């Protein structure tokens, strides 16, 4: 399989290990990721709050660049916020020709145009629908047996687009965690909100929301995430340290990739207890 890859800004900075582990995991799975040339920021939460048209133009620029590269591939996005922004614009231009026209007028400044012909897919969507769990199981050889893992999905890969999972009771990570031999923690907080960007200006919201989530994960040896914002908030606000890993880090380790190759030294939470338990 081959995908056009949109890493997004976080994966160049605070979520460097998400980028490393995503690339390493997909290589191990025999998939090719081709980065979108000259990609720029999707606008994150800021554009929505500041400027309605730019909030569409910024993701559209990246869709237009991807369309120039290859019209037969899907776009793979690991960051949930980037995924939501890119997908929102992809869906909006399909039903709103007037908006499409306004976006393309702006993009014409760079001789770009978007049509909305490429599918935008979250990393989790690709993992749970395109990858054979038997491949993960075979490469893992039960390496995570005896461990309990809490799958944490957050919000924006599940909602508002209900593309590949139940938006309230998500389960798409279950099969891949089980494929490694680990047990999935049964809990209700998988799709609960970590506070997203609110704690950046209002830390109290992060402390309370993350507190509620982590409290229910006490039994787990690790929480796995699929979003840089979730990962950062869980690492920053958790009262009792529990290892928090990106899903591709966990799967990569299970499949025998080295801790260094999936960026294990870069997590802000102390993941050594997890590595010790997993005998890595």
């Amino acid at each position, binding site marked *: 399989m081959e995908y056009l890859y949109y890493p997004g800004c976080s994966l160049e*900075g605070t979520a460097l290990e998400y980028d490393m582990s995503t690339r390493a995991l997909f290589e191990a799975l025999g998939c090719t990721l081709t980065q979108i040339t000259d990609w720029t*920021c999707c606008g994150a939460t*800021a554009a*929505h709050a500041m400027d309605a048209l730019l909030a569409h133009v910024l993701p559209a620029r990246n869709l237009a660049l991807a369309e120039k590269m290859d019209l037969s591939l899907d776009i793979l996005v690991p960051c949930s916020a980037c995924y939501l922004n890119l997908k929102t614009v992809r869906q909006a231009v399909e039903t709103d020709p007037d908006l499409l026209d306004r976006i393309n007028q*702006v993009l014409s400044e760079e001789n770009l145009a978007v049509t909305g012909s490429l599918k935008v897919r979250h990393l989790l969507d690709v993992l749970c629908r395109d990858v054979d769990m038997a491949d993960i199981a075979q490469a893992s050889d039960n390496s995570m047996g005896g461990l309990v893992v809490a799958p944490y999905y957050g919000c924006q890969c599940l*909602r508002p687009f209900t593309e590949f999972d139940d*938006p*309230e009771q998500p389960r798409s990570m279950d099969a891949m965690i089980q494929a490694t031999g680990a047990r999935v923690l049964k809990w209700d907080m998988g799709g609960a909100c970590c506070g997203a960007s609110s704690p950046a200006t209002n830390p109290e*919201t992060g402390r309370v929301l993350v507190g509620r989530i982590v409290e229910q994960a006490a039994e787990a040896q690790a929480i796995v995430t699929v979003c840089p914002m979730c990962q950062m908030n869980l690492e920053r606000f958790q009262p009792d340290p529990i290892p928090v890993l990106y899903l591709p880090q966990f799967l990569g380790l299970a499949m025998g990739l080295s801790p260094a190759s999936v960026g294990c030294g870069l997590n802000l939470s102390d993941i050594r207890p997890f590595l010790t338990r997993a005998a890595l």
Partner: protein
Amino acid sequence: MALSDISEKLAALPEISHRVDQIKHLVDACIQCGTCSASCPNLDFMDMTPRRMWRYLLAGRVEKVFASQTFTLCSSCYVCTLRCPRGLPLTEAMAGLKQVAFALKLEQFRRSRLFYAAFMENIRQYGRVREMEMMTRYFLAVKNPLVPLGYASMGARLLKKNKLHPRLPSRGSGKLAHLFEQAHRQEH
């Protein structure tokens, strides 16, 4: 700011008033069932429930809406949007209210506005986020020495992991300046 001042400010700015009408239109089928309030993870931090806020908006009491912090506490989790029995785009409406509050430069939302403004300037300039420059710009704009302190420990942890990259601010017109200008021309 006195409530009447917000109404006066809005009355003097037809463009922004029009935006408020658009947002109102998004929620005008609200039946006041309160599912949004019951679903909101940030309810405990709000001074007014989302249900009540929508009611004030629909009743034309915009000064009440903007005197409240409720919409700025929306973390875009989309649970209310998912569950709303009328299928209303509530998260989108919340973002619209933020746009209006920031455009009005209301004092009580100054910090959030400056944070987002620093972010937008950052990507206008570089195309991608550079955290160090963004936060520096934010701290300079806020002009309150206590604000950077709140970020110091997180900043130190990120620096230690080599995740922040201090770079000299580059000059020039900006990577996405043309797009930003063209978008602004279209909107005004």
